[in-house]
Structures are given as C-alpha cells and as structure tokens.
C-alpha cells in the first residue's frame, strides 16, 4: 500500500547566518491510509514545524516530502495550495467564522471543490454534522455553541470533503476530558471509515490510547 505521506531526510532551519537554528534534522516518516498516528514531545521539539511542512503551509528546504504522491520540495505556491485542498486541518483554536452557521462553516470546505454541486452543500454538511453529534445545531452560530461543540464543527469542516489526510494540532487542549475523548473518538471513527491517515500532535496523555502508533519527537528528531 502506497503511503499517503512520506518524509525522507527532511531538515529544516529558521533564521540566517549565526542565528540559524535547526528545528528538524533528518526526519523520516510514513503515514498509511486508515492509521491514526500521534506525534508527541516537549515544546520546541519541532512538532509544529513538521506539521506545517506536511500541511504544505511552509516551503521544504531540504530533503523530500511527498503528500499523496506529490513532491513538495521545490513545489510552486499554486501546487502547495492545491495540496492543501486535499488535507483536512483541525487547529487548537477552532477558528470558525463567527458570521456563519455550523452548516455554512462546514460548507466553506466544500466550496474549494468545484466538482461538488452547490445543492449538495447542505445535505452533505448536515450529514457530517449529524455524524459528529451536532444534528440539533446545524443552523446555530458559533457564539451559541460550547467549546466542545465548536471543535466538533471544526472536525466536521475538516472531514466533510473526505480528505485522505487529516492533520490535527492539539485538538483537545481546550476541552474537558470527556469532551476531548469524545472528539478524538469521532476523528478516529471517521478516519477509519474513510480510509484516511490522521496525524495528531498532542500533549494530552488521556487520548494516547486511540493511536495506532505513537511517535516521540525531541530536538528535531523522531524516535518511538
């Protein structure tokens, strides 16, 4: 089975000259369809940098990074944007648009896919919102939702266009343990059903057991 993400010998540094500081060193990683991988490690270990690189939000400096078969080293801006279309993102802050309802927020993700007709926006977003347990809050605005509900809308937004790769950065950090648990379980279930790979960065020990693999990162290197 071809990996969804394959990272080979990836090295990344910030700053210039004497201030140059390496954050990633010779990172090797492969993610396969349907697996949930947790990336943990102390702050400053380079987790977020790795996540933004895999998310095509940064240019690759050195080494090889392939997402869904597309080499991102030396890729153009247009290509990076196209790659991002195929990735689902879940952030620590839910970052929902305050002016849109749950259903409309979820639809923003569908709008990026020109082949999905507009009349399907509502049924498809309703379906995914029901799947994350928000069937009663389809037309609610974010200000009327609790923290956990908002994060679930964000998950629905990330998953509605059926991405092959889901990247999540501390998705449970602002949630209590029960809600947090609930949220990652939804992610896990939907990921399995759709055969998508999940890369989850977290400090949260309570959810480590949902992972198929746990990678530990320290000083820009991955151990396990």
């Amino acid at each position: 089975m071809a990996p969804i993400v394959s990272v080979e010998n990836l090295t990344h540094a910030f700053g210039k000259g004497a201030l140059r500081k390496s954050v990633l060193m010779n990172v090797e990683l492969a993610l396969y369809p349907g697996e949930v991988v947790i990336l943990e490690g102390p702050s400053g270990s380079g987790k977020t940098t790795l996540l933004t690189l895999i998310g095509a939000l940064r240019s690759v400096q050195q080494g090889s990074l392939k997402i869904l078969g597309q080499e991102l080293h030396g890729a153009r801006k247009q290509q990076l944007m196209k790659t991002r279309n195929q990735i689902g993102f879940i952030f620590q802050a839910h970052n929902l648009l305050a002016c849109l309802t749950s259903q409309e927020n979820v639809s923003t993700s569908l709008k990026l896919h020109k082949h999905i007709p507009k009349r399907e926006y509502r049924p498809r977003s309703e379906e995914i919102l029901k799947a994350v347990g928000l069937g009663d809050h389809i037309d609610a605005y974010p200000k009327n939702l609790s923290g956990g509900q908002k994060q679930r809308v964000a998950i629905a937004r990330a998953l509605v266009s059926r991405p092959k790769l889901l990247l999540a950065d501390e998705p449970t950090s602002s949630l209590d343990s029960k809600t947090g648990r609930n949220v990652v379980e939804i992610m896990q279930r939907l990921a399995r059903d759709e055969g998508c790979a999940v890369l989850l960065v977290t400090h949260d020990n309570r959810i480590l057991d949902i992972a198929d693999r746990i990678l530990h990162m320290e000083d820009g290197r991955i151990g396990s």
Partner: protein
Amino acid sequence: MKSPFLKSLKTWRQILQAHKPLGWAQLSHQKTRLLVAVTGVAFSNILIFTQLGIRALLFDGVTLLPDNLKGDLFLVSAYAPTIDWGTFPIIHLYKANAVEGVASASPLYISTANWVNPEDLLPSNPSDEGSESGDGPPQITLFPNRVKVLALNPVAPVLDIPEVNQQLDQLNAPDVLLFDRLAQEKLGPVSGLFAETGEVITVMNNRRVRVVGLFSLGSNMFDNGHVVMSDWNYARRRGRDSLSRVNIASLTLDPGADLLTVQARLQAHLSKDVRVLTREEVAESEQNFQASLPNGKVLSFGAAMGFIVGIVIVYQVLYTDVSDHLPEYATLKAMGYSDRALLIVVLQEALILAVIGFIPGFITSYWVYGLLTQVTRIPLTMRADVAFQIFILTLVMCIVSGGIAMNKLRSADPADCFRG
C-alpha cells in the same frame, strides 16, 4: 398542500445559503459595525453632494442670463471674461445685422444699481422717521442693495421670458421697471407689496422708480436679483452715451440658415473686438470664468475632501474587519483558499457598503438640497447625472479603500494557525 410548499421553501433556503456571499455574511453579522460603516459612507456622500451642490449653485447660477436670452448667436466683447464686465460699440451690432443669414439683432445693456428696500421708505415705519430727524446718518436704515439692471429695446425683445415680453409696452413710461419675484429677500417684499397695491415705488441709484410688473428669473451668488427696464429709461439714468456700448447682442438667424456657417461668416466680417458665440459657448465662457476664480476651485476641492474622507472611513471599517477576522482568514487560507478568493471577499464588502451607504446618503442630500434652495433662494436641483457620478465615485471610493485594506489580508499567515 403544506408540505410541498415547505419543501420548496427549504430548497430555496439551501440555494440562497449556498450562494450567500461571505462578504455579506461578515458585514451583516455585526449590525452595529454595519450601521457605523453605512453611516460613514452616507456621510461622505452627503459631503460630496453638498459641495458639488454648492458648486452647481455657483456654476449654474452664472448661466442664468445666457439661458434666458432669445436668439441663435450672440456678440460679446472679446476683451472681457464675462458679459457683465465687457461692452462693445453698438456699430458692430448694426454691421452684424447686415450680414447674410442674420434676421435681426437686438442689444442688451447690463449694469448694477443700488436698490432700496421699499419697506424702508414706508412712512409708517417709525425707525425711518427717527433716523431722518435723529443724529444717525439715514444711510444706515436706507442701506441699499445691489440689483442687476437689464435694459432692452421694447420693440426688439431680447429676453426669452414670456412674462417680460407680455409687459413690454408698460416699460415705455418714465422711470418704470419690472422686478424679479425670485430676487433675494433683502431687496424687500416687492412681489407681496405689488400684489397688494398694484404698484411699488422705491429708490434706485438715488432716483425714484416704479415697479409696474413682475417676472421670474432667479438670483445667483453674485446678483441679488434682476430688474428689467427699457433702453430709453436706461439712457435717462446713465446718459445718452450709455446706449452706444452694448454688453451682449442677440442675433436671430433667417429660417434655414446654418448656425455654424453664419457664425464663421460673422466672425470674418466683424472686427476682432467682438466674439460671435453660440448659446452654449456663452454659458461655457461664463462658467470657465467662474472656474478660474478661487470660488470654483475651493468648492471642487471641498468635493475632493469628501471623497478622501469617504476613503478613510471605509478603509477604517474594512481594515478593522480584516484585522478582527485575521485568524479566520488564515484558517481559510490553510484550508486552501487562494489569496484572490479572500480579496474578493473584501471587495464584496466594499461594494456592498458603497451600495447600501449611497441610499441614505442620497436621500439626505436630497433634503439638504431642498434646504439650500430655501435658504439661498437660488434654485438647486438634484440632477440625475450628478447623482450617477457620485454613485460611481462612491464605488471607486470603496474599491480603493478595499484595495488598501487588502494589504492587511496578505499578512494572514496560515502557518500561524498551528501556534494556538
């Protein structure tokens, strides 16, 4: 019956929802901010409208006389920027009359005179008597105002005002004139007194005059009002020589004569001291003269200021909006939205603000125009072409501010989303 209706309602909602522009959602979500923004746009609209309105008062006012002249071509002095100032020897008028294609030529004499409010002369006015017997100089209560005198030959009517032309035979009596009922109030309640008594007597340039009729022409920023008298009365007041120099002559062409051909022929025949102009050229030359004075420039500048104020207000609104939603926009970028798609959102907001801000701006300006007309007694109308120009200006204003606010959008870095 109920359920298909509900179903179609639901379908419509879905369609609307799927097409709802994000820009509109952003704007309408915060009602107070939307109100402030719309007020800002409307305010700058009112500023521009008012400045352009006052400008129109100035520029439309100076063409009042040319617009109400009879005739096809006009002779004016080549040495004066405005017909009020320049005169030319009447011999040119006779010469012009002899040119082929000209049917008739009639002179118009223009000057100003001091006009005394007839109310100040009424014997029942106690302050009047007091000032005559008291220590104070009588000029204080009898302070005259300027009025513009139009003198014409009653057998060669030169004004295109039917009311004047019907009363021409009355002008042959000594010291009589027709008075403009749209004149400024400070000239006195002449039309009211005339309606009451059928005759008003007052003093003009230290000589008694009798108002024997009224007409409507209007005033502008420089002339409080107009009076019309015969050339014979004009000469009685200003000396016989005054009729030898004409301010403007109106030429009526033979039926079928070509305007431009006759104009060229006249200009070739006449001395270089006079210019032969069409009605539009006379109006244009009066307006150009105004535009060359500080007044016109100041008012154009005022309109430009309104435009700039509008840009600043709309820019502030859009900039705050973008700044407040930066994390949201960054998220959209991370999801794969292009810069262009987000720029379109800001432009949408700008355009929506332009359109909904223009409506209250226009309505208020309409009211301001009415107020200005009432206060100045100078007719000011909301012209469709001016309103359209200002609408276009508003669109430009909002797009420019949107363009500036977009720079902020570029600073939305999707990689920031991952740092919580």
